[in-house]
């Protein structure tokens, strides 16, 4: 399943759209590490709901 992410209304988290899980910006969190890798590949998360 292709990864995709969405920013949240509060800073410090991103939502993984494949399972709707919230990922905190903690360098030790493996899901956050995966998100950083995804960004490095040139991807951009969806904006937060206004």
């Amino acid at each position, binding site marked *: 399943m292709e990864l995709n992410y969405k920013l949240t209304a509060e800073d410090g988290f991103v*939502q993984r759209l494949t*399972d709707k*899980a919230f990922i*905190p910006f903690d360098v030790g969190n*493996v*899901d*956050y590490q995966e998100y950083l890798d995804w960004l490095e590949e040139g991807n951009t998360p969806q904006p937060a709901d206004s």
Partner: protein
Amino acid sequence: MSTIKVNKIENTSTTDGGISIDNAGHVQIDGQQLPTAGALSHRNLVMNGAMQVAQRTTSATGVTTTGYKSVDRFKANISAMGTYTISQSTDAPDGFSNSLKYEVTTADASPAASDQVAAEYRVEAQDLQHLNYGSSSAKSLTLSFWVKSDVTGTYSNEFMQADNSSKHYSFSYTINTADTWEHKTVTVEGDTSGVINNDFGEGLLIKWWLGAGSNFTSGTYSTGSWAARTAANAVSSSSPNFASTVGNEWYITGVQLEVGSVATPFEHRSFGEELARCYRYFQKSYSYGTAVGANTTDGRYYFLIGTTSDAANKGGSVYLGTNMRVAPTTNFYNDAGTQGVIQIPASTVTPLLLKTGVIAIYVGNTTSREVAGAWTADAEF
């Protein structure tokens, strides 16, 4: 001081039991091996080695991807190589009640180059500092486990150090007889040059390979020493392909990793103690026996119990049962098991805090008096 040189001490009327001392000076009492290093208790560096704890579910079907599927702390690593049911089985050797089971439900007899299937366990780095890795006093480790499969042959496995570019130590074990529990041990020499960082990251990874494509088998497979890792050298080309046939089964339990050069009897810990240890890596609001995402009210956690139905911004928090390894990835579920929404109000949530010890959310302006839904918190590797 005098020294008594003796290989064995027995009762005068029997040859059973007694105290045996082998050529290396290691001692057995009544056939039970004593540790050669480290403490007598809390020897096992592996949590949930008897596969007692399965918080997520006792059986995950249709598994095709990497993740923690059934028993806690043991991760399936699957990349485009078959489909599996991964479960907490009650098939176990004497002295154990459970095992981790992989069963092939869609075979892959001809894996592509990058395909793989494996079981993995990770030890947190700060729990390995007493090994003195990276120094001249680095200590040996011994891994022991029970394993059973209907696919016989010699399987490839690895220890890996995340802090040292996945420096690895390969080892093999052989399933000699199909469908029969066999006890395996391997001793790993201490690594005098690879420092394991004193932090909450991954210290050691133990990987039991079950199948691999040529990216992992095309090099030179060598066991018995720490070495820089090249993926091509990870698996022997003669290692069995467990994924080759539908219905193939592989079981493992009694996993123990301990300091020293011999395997001692498995250190059984209570269910409650193992569950408490697992909370550092995964917690949920559901009752222990309820699978995550089940269609049930069982997981419903009341973040807020209010007294007014006035429209207002509302939210709440969870004080986690134990501090987790890192700030956890967190998900929410309604009673139907739908991810990303809670039950009351029937809405999405926004996180305010996701920390090692607390989760806090808000749901915005609502007339609901309560804020309630199921949640999971995952701080695994």
